[in-house]
């Protein structure tokens, strides 16, 4: 049997028609403007961060990074990310699964709720936790009676971070799963797979790049979050200071090298995230296209 030619799913770029192509000078001006804008507002600050961090030489830089308080801030940030990112992965997958694969009342409401952290100022998110868990707060007395410390301690920081980062994974997965529908899962079940096997062998591999993308963004935000964490942290050196908070403290103490050294780590994280994100987009652009709702 003769088969027709093999079809591939390479995205092909249509060449633009002459009618909608601007003249050369206009193109040049537009591009120059875009590049200049980015250079001033993004590239320059980035260079300044590294320049200031290394202003007194590499020795001062490593020394700044090895101070106990800085180390503790780095450890705390890593800990917070290590707790909140996996939790948000679980939450994101469950929420996306529920929204994409089932029909139920309140679905639109749930979708809106997931977007809430994007629309609420992080400071407000932090304040809500103060009102909830603080000494004068709703649950404050009960928590105190049971000896549970949340506010101005690590649990509060983790909670605030989870709150501000929970849309990232879910938002990446929902459109992707909606687009893919139930067909593959039904096929897996009809072949005898259990629900868990269908999820593990079929659903997860189908969304893995979208998931990874969501995890990257979630992680970057979890490590970089300032506002919400600042409200609930209490700024106790060596105990409840995350990296962004530590940068502020060092800067306020006129310790420019220290502040920018820590900042350079955060900037480095941002750069790594950006590179990975770009690589993912290049490699799996078609799969992620569905998820680019925002």
């Amino acid at each position: 049997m003769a088969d027709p030619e093999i079809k591939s799913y390479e995205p092909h770029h249509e060449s633009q028609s002459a009618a909608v192509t601007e003249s050369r000078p206009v193109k040049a001006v537009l591009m120059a403007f875009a590049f200049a804008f980015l250079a001033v507002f993004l590239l320059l600050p980035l260079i300044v961060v590294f320049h200031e961090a290394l202003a007194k030489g590499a020795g001062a830089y490593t020394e700044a990074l090895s101070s106990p308080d800085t180390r503790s801030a780095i450890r705390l940030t890593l800990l917070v990310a290590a707790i909140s990112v996996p939790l948000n992965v679980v939450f994101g997958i469950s929420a996306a699964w529920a929204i994409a694969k089932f029909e139920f009342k309140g679905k639109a409401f749930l979708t809106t709720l997931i977007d809430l952290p994007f629309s609420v100022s992080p400071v407000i998110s932090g304040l809500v936790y103060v009102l909830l868990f603080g000494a004068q707060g709703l649950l404050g007395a009960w928590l105190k009676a049971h000896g549970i410390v949340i506010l101005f301690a690590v649990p509060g920081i983790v909670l605030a971070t989870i709150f501000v980062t929970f849309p990232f994974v879910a938002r990446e997965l929902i459109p992707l799963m909606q687009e893919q529908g139930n067909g593959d899962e039904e096929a897996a079940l009809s072949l005898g797979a259990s629900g868990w096997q269908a999820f593990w062998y079929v659903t997860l591999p189908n969304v893995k790049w979208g998931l990874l993308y969501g995890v990257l963004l979630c992680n970057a935000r979890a490590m970089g979050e300032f506002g919400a964490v600042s409200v609930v942290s209490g700024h106790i050196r060596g105990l409840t200071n995350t990296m962004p908070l530590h940068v502020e403290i060092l800067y306020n103490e006129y310790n420019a090298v220290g502040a920018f050294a820590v900042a350079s780590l955060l900037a480095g994280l941002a750069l790594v995230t950006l590179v990975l994100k770009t690589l993912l987009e290049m490699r799996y652009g078609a799969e992620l296209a569905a998820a680019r709702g925002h």
Partner: protein
Amino acid sequence: MEVRVVNVRKEFERFPALHDVSLDIRSGELIALLGPSGSGKTTLLRLIAGLERPTKGAIFFGDEDASQKSIQERNVGFVFQHYALFRHMTVADNIGFGLKVRHGAARPSGQEIRRRALELLDLVQLSGLEKRYPAQLSGGQRQRVALARAMAIEPKVLLLDEPFGALDAQVRRELRRWLREIHDRTGHTTVFVTHDQEEALELADRVVVMSQGRIEQVGTADDIYDTPNSPFVYSFIGESSSLPVKVENGEVWIADRPIGLSAPHAPSGEAVLHFRPHDVDLVDGCSGCIAGTVAASRRVAGTRRVELEIGGERQRVEIELPVDHPAAQKSRVAFRPRRWKLFPAT
């Protein structure tokens, strides 16, 4: 495996998709569910598979009530309309999936799974493509991988949802013949859904014609084509012409003339006469026939179709004439249907 559908009703959020449907599928049979979209044919297929649960009624596999069994327990091979191949797995892994997810002793070794996958790949004539991914296959090849994957679990029943719906005409015809061959070789009880009457009549041992959630008729291609039992089947399968008539004393009348057809068992009153445009005898003169004026004529393949205006009310019917028939515009043609059926006027 024999499959019996007994008085099944299915509602989706109060909207009935199937009304009280019963169907016996014989073991080893290749049967087609044929109907327009919204007729409930895919719902019936999904109910047999266990992808949906009936609102009422039961489905038996052999003597066993399968209605309450999950899809995993039913052991059916389901081929989805868009194949639903696992895109991140190679062709061989796709085919072996149903064996890989088995537990304990029922699960063959990795080597055995691979051997079986290659064997099935050979059966569907795709040897050598085991390392390809679904995206690297043509539509027809994907269809065949999907079938091989469904057959890998040695299903009791093979269920195919619009198996050729997404393919172009040439590939469809080839795959149709090929599916018939595979069926004859493996002997699986096979049910497939289609909206293409040609596909159903050509491929299936028996055809189930469905409309609006009900089964209209079940029978062989000959039964369905030659003796349709409802106006729907008449108009849905093949070409048909219809005329409003009157029955009086067992004779069929158009306006004030008997047309030479006797219907001794039909009740007197208004009725609709159905017949196939090609199933007519041309007659000379007209005592006891249908006569009309040629209103339009067109060439269809090896024959000529003419539209006749009948009687004072200018009802139009189509009949088929030999190409060399001299009927021109405005000439009169008289005929009598060879095979026909009366249905009550609606």
